[in-house]
């Protein structure tokens, strides 16, 4: 497994610990999609905005071109699954019926606001369901690599890309650490195995409160 894949799996595995059934979960494209493989609790139900509650893996031989997730990747349907149209699917999201959304980001800031749909100077071409999930999901968890490809912190004092919502996310999970957003501030909750607080400080532009230290007092 490549280093990139290992990092993604590490983040997904940690995020999976946040999901205990019964709950309805919507997974974004990328790292969030990987979370499902670490869930054994059959009372965790996966929702996809293109119209399916009860998403599961599909074996190569069973692929149906008309059964996909929001990333247009082939999926399967669980026993007890249901199909519905797009407006009903978004009524579930906007109406507060989805418990958890796990999303990727381009940037997240120290107030917990995220940017994940547009890059300034590039054509604004796609938003999909990102803005709907931010206003509607009861809990929003961000899974992301801590830094971008050029090594810059993705956890910023303030997002400079266009924000997805004025709502703050609830939790941020990276390959270095786990943060919780509380009253518009970032709290460092956990270090990932083998990671030091110095390394996290070094790679994080956002201000955060070191809860580990606070707890040790």
């Amino acid at each position, binding site marked *: 497994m490549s280093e990139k894949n290992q990092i993604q799996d590490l983040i997904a595995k940690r995020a999976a610990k946040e999901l205990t059934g019964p709950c309805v979960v919507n997974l974004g494209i990328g790292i969030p999609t990987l979370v499902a493989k670490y869930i054994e609790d059959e009372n965790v139900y996966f929702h996809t905005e293109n119209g399916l509650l009860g998403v599961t893996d599909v074996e190569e031989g069973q692929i149906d071109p008309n059964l996909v997730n929001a990333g247009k990747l082939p999926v399967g349907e669980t026993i007890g699954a249901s*199909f519905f149209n797009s407006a009903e699917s978004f009524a579930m999201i906007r109406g507060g019926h989805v418990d958890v959304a796990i999303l990727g980001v381009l940037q997240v800031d120290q107030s917990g606001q995220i940017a994940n749909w547009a890059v300034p100077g590039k054509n604004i071409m796609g938003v999909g369901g990102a803005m709907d999930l931010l206003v509607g999901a009861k809990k929003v968890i961000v899974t992301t690599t801590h830094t971008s490809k050029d090594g810059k912190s993705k956890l910023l004092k303030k997002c400079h890309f266009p924000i997805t919502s004025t709502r703050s996310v609830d939790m941020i999970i990276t390959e270095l650490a786990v943060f919780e957003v509380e009253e518009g501030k970032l709290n460092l909750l956990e270090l990932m195995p083998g990671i030091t607080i110095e390394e996290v400080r070094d790679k994080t532009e956002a201000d955060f409160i070191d809860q580990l230290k606070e707890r040790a007092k």
Partner: protein
Amino acid sequence: MSKIHQDIEKALACVKDGHTLMVGGFGLIGAPLTLIDGLTKKEVTELTVISNNLGEIGKGLGELLRQKKIKKAVGSYFTSNREVGDYYQKGEIELELLPQGTLSESMRAGGAGIGGYYTKTGVGTELAKGKEEREINGIKYIFEPAIRADVALIRAWKADTLGNLVYYKTARNFNPLMATAADVVIVEVDEIVEPGELSPEVIVTPHLFVDGIIKAKKILTKEGVIDYE
């Protein structure tokens, strides 16, 4: 009068220059590929297309884009066809981006005779620019108008000869909403059956919404889009 069309030209006779079309599908999944193929062979121009995406590169609505028949596209995610950006840069297409929940809810409203509605989605973002904001019970909302079209081209699994429709898995997506929100609704299906063969309990789109039916000649398979007789 029968709603069933044998030939694609007649099924698409309702589409005129300058029309606003709704076209079903999430990418190519649930897209009316036969009707779109028919549009690529029809002399028509200045279309406004309301669809979640503009197909894929050179496929589905992507082919119509290449023929420059689309003046404006309204959707939530154009990134799935990189060529849309190129045409936009050259000023050859107008784009209107809506959150996917707003796109679908605006169709629902359009089909139900509702003028518009207030939603929290998008408040405080670039997509709220120029939209009326209103506070209801202490929460901020923006106004979104309903959308309708001259013609909706949709895809279903089965139709009976009256026009009752059922859909297949995630190929359902926007199709049942579009069926309600256009002056003329043309559907392509895998199978046409006699009334009574579809249980009234499972019909998703009742026949009053449907004006024309044609059998699909292009279908999506694991290997891509193929011709089907």
